[in-house]
């Protein structure tokens, strides 16, 4: 067996593969134009261990469709650069619940991956939705110490608007996931 190729930082110039339109999964000339579902935005600010915003991160989004399927009919991929204030913002459809290990059900969630200068590999986390009754049964959240669970739960800030800030290091550090 040959082990996987080592990850390397995306560096400060990854914007050469930044296509700002990709942050809007529902863009009129994109693969999901006209897709039906609840339109939402998912936004947040990324900060580092010194409390400084991270203005040069690449955030990638991966999610199921509104029925909880990854069958590809909905192209659940997006990419967004953080701005000078460390902010990212995606426009998408709210995903449905996804089958989990055994007979469990994963509450609706969006996977976020962060790449940046100073990150030797991507950091993977999830955004769940506050107030969803299925959070209590989610098999992944159940593995997260209760004190830190909140770092994975986006909060509503308006109609269809959700916010999840990401802290790379230190107090309130986001829970990052690995398989």
């Amino acid at each position, binding site marked *: *067996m*040959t*082990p*996987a*190729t*080592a*990850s*390397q*930082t*995306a*560096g*400060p*110039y*990854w*914007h*050469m*593969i930044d296509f700002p339109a990709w942050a809007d999964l529902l863009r009129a000339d994109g*693969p999901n134009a006209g897709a039906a579902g609840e339109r939402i935005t998912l936004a947040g600010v990324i900060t580092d*261990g*010194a409390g*400084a915003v*991270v203005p040069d991160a690449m955030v*990638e989004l*991966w999610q*199921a469709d509104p029925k909880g399927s*990854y069958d*590809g009919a909905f*192209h*659940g*991929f997006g990419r967004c650069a953080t701005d000078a204030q460390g902010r990212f913002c995606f426009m998408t459809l709210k995903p449905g619940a*996804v*089958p*989990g*290990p*055994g*007979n469990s059900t*994963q509450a609706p969630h969006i*996977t976020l991956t962060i790449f*940046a*200068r*100073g*990150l*030797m*590999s*991507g*950091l*993977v986390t999830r955004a769940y939705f506050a107030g969803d009754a299925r959070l209590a049964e989610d*098999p*992944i959240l159940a*593995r*997260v110490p209760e004190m830190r669970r909140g770092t994975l739960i986006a909060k509503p800030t308006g109609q269809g608007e959700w916010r999840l800030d990401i802290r*790379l*290091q230190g107090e309130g*550090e*986001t*829970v*990052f*996931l*690995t*398989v």
Partner: protein
Amino acid sequence: MVDPIPFRPVAPGSQPPLDLPSYRSTAHRHPSQPPLRMPTTLTEASAPSFTPAWYAPHDDLSVVDGKQALGERMIVAGRVTDENGRPVAGAMVEVWQANAAGRYHHARDQHDAPLDPNFHGEGRVFTDAEGRYSFTTIKPGAYPWRNPGPGWRPQHIHFGLHGNGFAQRLITQMYFPGDPLLAFDAIFQGSGDDAAKRRLIADLDPELMRPDWALGYRFDIVLRGRAATPFENA
């Protein structure tokens, strides 16, 4: 519902640490807590389907508007397989790099090397059924960066890959054989064990060269593989 086949655990020594003191930018950006291990679910086992229809391929970086970029023209090609040696077909491969003088076509790159109007340095290709990819470009230059030490990055090309499971997502860098700057580069040296570092260095490959036209470098890439047996639910 049958659980997806889990990915193999990361092989010891094959990946860099997030906390790498020799690479100064990691200081405030690496998480202080280890990542939470979780089973492979449908979310990690599935992956976006990137089709050329929506993601237009661009496999020749060496020409802009019919005009040749400055530098050593070269073909970079290789195979993308998983840890089990199986080809990864239909993988989207994104590349970006500096020009021959070591300058990126990027507003934030303030290195006072010249820009080349005939070189942008960004490409996108897809693997075929055998996992093969290929693109044409020019050899990037080394460039200075603000990190303790000799402070010049070795010549490299950035690669981003999406496989057939989101857990295979990889961003890495390809280096060149015999580059003396490799010995001093915090990012390359921090990649993992010697075998991990060796895998990041392309091979000059006579078979890929085109006489009187281009050099050829082979860079094979391995993405995470799935375990042989299904995950046992604890």
